[in-house]
């Protein structure tokens, strides 16, 4: 399936990735090529086949709802591009 440049803009927005305007057409071509290859799947009848999410059909293992991790906020925030007083700083969202 071919995707148009406007499709790419929509997907890029969903993925939160900026694509330079002069790159959009090239990206659309590449993604269209990949989707065309992927479309080989559509020729196969899978109506009676159930989807497989895990190769062992395993389901999520649950654990007791108990605190198991120490609070390491200060340590983790040393990795942050900007943090202050225990808070991550981002550009102003609300005036």
């Amino acid at each position, binding site marked *: 399936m071919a995707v148009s440049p406007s499709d790419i803009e929509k997907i*890029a927005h969903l993925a939160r*990735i900026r*694509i330079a305007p002069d790159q959009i057409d090239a990206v659309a071509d590449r993604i269209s090529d990949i989707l065309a290859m*992927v479309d080989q*799947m559509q020729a196969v009848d899978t109506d009676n086949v159930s989807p*497989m999410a895990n*190769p062992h059909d395993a389901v999520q293992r649950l654990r007791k709802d108990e605190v198991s991790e120490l609070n390491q906020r200060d340590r983790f925030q040393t990795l942050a591009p900007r943090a202050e007083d225990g808070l991550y700083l*981002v550009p102003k*969202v609300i005036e």
Partner: protein
Amino acid sequence: MHTLSLRELADGLAKARFSSEELTRHFLARIAAHNPALNAYITVLEEQALAGARAADKQRSSGDVHPLTGVPFAHKDIFCTEGVRTSCGSKMLDNFIAPYNATVVEKMAAAGMINLGKTNMDEFAMGSSNETSFYGPVRNPWDTNCVPGGSSGGSAAAVAAGLAPAATGTDTGGSIRQPSALCNLTGLKPTYGRVSRYGMIAFASSLDQAGPMARTAEDAALMLQVMAGFDEKDSTSIDCTVPDYSASLNNSLKGKVIGVPSEFFAEGLSDAVASRTRAALSEYEKMGAVLKDISLPHSHLSIPCYYVIAPAEASTNLSRYDGVRYGHRCDNPLDLADLYTRTREEGFGDEVKRRILVGTYALSAGFYDAYYRKAQRIRRLIKNDFTEAFKSVDIIAGPTSPSPAFALGEKVDDPLTMYLEDMYTIAVNLAGVPALSIPAGMVDNKPIGLQLIGRDFAEADILNAAHQFQLQTDWHKQFAPAFA
């Protein structure tokens, strides 16, 4: 010392023929001499390795130790290593100092093994040539104009050139086996759930597995023994007994049935690789195994299926890189949207962006059933092919990759051609079964690999078959001439 196997190095240490410090210095010196030409390492941990080696020597002199205590190795730069940059080959994590250890890192350290450094890789493990790395391409020690394969290309080149005796790798669609084939190594992708994924930076969570890359099956067995096991911290880890992988290496293959899928010898395989692979398979007949023609009828769908499932999972996993909590952040963001979109534009390379976009598309409203659900149904058909085949065979064998190492730059601008590199390896990840690649000879003076695929959790069977092959052949003993 750099041409010895892990087993031989462990013996040498046990018999005090050399110390861990001497061994570690030897490898560090080789890295200093040869890494500039190969670019196999992103980070070399000289001081830490030497401190670890001295501690290992002390420990060894004072009593019982794990046989691999003091043996050096390298970690793919996808495993979080506390206090050490863990980049995953990406600009996004160029400044990321991991605050904790991956379970695999913990286990290797607990065995007393010495981490020489972190090896180069395709960005976020997305690639088959190690050319998508932010840190530049890795060169193949067998021909430095060629790629080493990917995504574990740095690990493969490091071991093949004697810059480490073994290394860890990860394999989502062939990333341990294909570079092992292209660099003349023995590399094993375990059963999904066998080795903990905790602290291993996620690409496609239902496919990713870590495994050993070494020179011999015996070494791969030793290393897998250290890496494998249930882990509470990985919600997809499987609680299943880990056998002694070395104990069954010498089992006879008499009467074992090896299935050879016709689909693995069809269009796309180079003639020279096909005949070399057939010649390797005939070795098994000499050992008393029986070759049986089989079919994996949905093989042709594995690449289309994978290029929906892997990107879909990647788009989800990589949404965490937002420029807020760690990693790259763009300069002077205008607002929050600009912060996210520009950080991700700058931090990710082209192939990673492509896969995030494909995955986002496949998961988006209106396309989810046609792409993601469809791929999950095809995945079951592929798994069923293996289940059916294993009713009548013990092992499945064929080529690891369709051709030997190719030239740097040859395929990097053509993603669809690059994707075909993994045409024989990807189905294995979709099915979750274990597989390994072993050296199977030379084509145009470059190594090729034989792939052995086993039943779920039957790593011991394929290691046994690999070891028996290595008792009869000496391809695995051949060392890249320029680095001998």
